[in-house]
């Protein structure tokens, strides 16, 4: 497959260079640790620091959420690979304001190992570190093993809520509590239609038939629940919502926020067609929509497909979700 790149070995460095040049008011690279991206206007004395991170290739995740009111720093990995401990530790030191630091990231074996090593190192420097793993991807493990699930696009809600709490100067206990609550109430299912390719290989990362889709595929192309014939947007949406409703347990009168996320090359036109059905189904169930986001929030390079995320809000989560933020690639409130 074709890409507009230079030497694939330099792609992350070049991407970050272009990003910093595009967003100098929002982002800076740490001296001596170029894979540590910190909010120009975020970390401050007495505030809980929020460090996110993960593999590259999911842009605007995760670095796009670095900014006032959301994450204070992001550690950048290679394509689809967790960052090593060093840049995580450097992020941690840079955003520590004496009130502790929370690591927020999706639950992947590699990320867990690297962030845990970083946490040990940060602790040795007397920074209190808490970790909240996102596990919103219903398709990645059964309900009774929710802690095994992957974190996917639902990160958006979880990061935003925790970032809001930290920006309001809540304590680390409170920030951790709302992050865990947000994660517990966030549910995502995705479908993939066609693969992407890694810059280093330029080969499709999986194969899929012309009339097929993969339900529950992970954001790196990990196999999902099942491979099925491609169906209509409404059918696919209904199938996803069945799974989400089955776990969310939102009664009539409940309030949710919705994220319809492109995995890369699925255009807005399709996402809005899907959102039409989501709104219809929620309305029919008597569930009200507090806010809807539609677009590319957590991608897999140029993979085709999309995910639907619902977060079951309560008053506290609503207030935090509404809290303003100003990030390089995302603004709200």
């Amino acid at each position, binding site marked *: 497959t074709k890409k507009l790149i230079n030497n694939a070995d330099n792609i992350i460095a070049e991407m970050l260079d272009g990003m910093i040049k595009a967003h100098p008011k929002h982002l800076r690279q740490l001296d001596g640790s170029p894979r540590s991206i910190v909010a120009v206007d975020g970390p401050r004395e007495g505030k809980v620091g929020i460090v996110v991170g993960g593999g590259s290739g999911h842009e605007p995740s995760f670095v796009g959420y670095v900014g006032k009111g959301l994450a204070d720093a992001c550690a950048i990995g290679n394509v689809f690979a967790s960052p090593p401990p060093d840049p995580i530790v450097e992020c941690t030191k840079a955003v520590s304001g004496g009130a502790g630091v929370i690591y927020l990231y999706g639950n992947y074996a*590699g990320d867990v190992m690297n962030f845990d090593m970083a946490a040990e190192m940060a602790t040795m420097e007397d920074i209190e570190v808490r970790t909240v793993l996102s596990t919103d991807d219903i398709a990645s493990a059964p309900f009774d093993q929710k802690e095994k699930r992957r974190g996917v696009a639902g990160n958006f809600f979880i990061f935003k809520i925790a970032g809001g709490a930290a920006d309001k100067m809540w304590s680390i206990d409170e920030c951790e509590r709302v992050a865990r609550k947000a994660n517990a109430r966030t549910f995502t299912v995705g479908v993939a239609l066609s693969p992407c390719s890694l810059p280093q290989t330029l080969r499709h*990362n999986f194969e899929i038939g012309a009339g097929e889709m993969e339900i529950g595929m992970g954001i790196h192309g990990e196999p999902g629940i099942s491979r099925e014939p491609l169906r209509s947007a409404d059918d696919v949406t209904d199938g996803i919502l069945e799974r989400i409703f089955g776990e969310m347990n939102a009664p009539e009168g409940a309030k949710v926020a919705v994220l319809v996320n492109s995995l890369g090359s699925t255009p807005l036109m399709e996402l809005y067609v899907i959102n039409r059905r989501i709104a219809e189904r929620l309305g029919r169930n008597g569930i009200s929509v507090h806010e809807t986001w539609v677009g590319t929030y957590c991608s897999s390079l140029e993979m085709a497909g999309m995910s639907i995320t619902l977060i079951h809000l309560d008053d506290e989560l609503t207030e935090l979700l509404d809290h303003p933020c100003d990030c390089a690639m995302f603004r709200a409130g």
Partner: protein
Amino acid sequence: MTTITSQNLVDLFLAIAAAIDQDKERLSELDGVIGDADHGVTMNIGFTAVKNALGGLDTTEADPTTVFNTSAKSFLNAVGASSGPLYATAFMRAGAAVKGESALDRNAMVEAFKAMAKGIQDRGKAERGDKTMVDAWLPASEAIEAAAERDESLAACFAAAATAAEEGAEATKTMQASKGRASWLGARSLGHMDPGAASTALIVRTMADVFAHI
């Protein structure tokens, strides 16, 4: 009896780096079936970094522990991912196991190898049968221990380890871990070799080849 110098260790790492570079596409393809298609890329980035870092070492000065620690650090910082912490821990543990030695005899080298396997298991907390590289490293570690107890040569010890690693990797094809992702995947995870186990087999086989010629 053969002893392994720091220079020998450097050559060992260079041989592994070359083997990974050669086989990286197969490893990524294996990862494409049950993972994210990057294992060959990642291992190649890691061992290329190791190669470059060791190139800067003066092996007349550096002891084996330094070689292992340099490898660990450069691998980890270049890679991250799952493989980074796993292999970095492996190399660091090997370095710790031979601390203070200026060259390694058969027993020291076997201890270093066993420390690697142990390090990988400690870091990743995977159990046997979880369909990971542990399913190649553990049998290899047990095989090398048994061979050393039988007082076989360094070359024979590593040959035994390589065969065990290969068999272990092969066995991952029949594994369908009971937890996490695999419980959705069900039968779909069957029949495919774990990429991390495949690279383990390659690494240990390369070690055996190198030690066969020392």
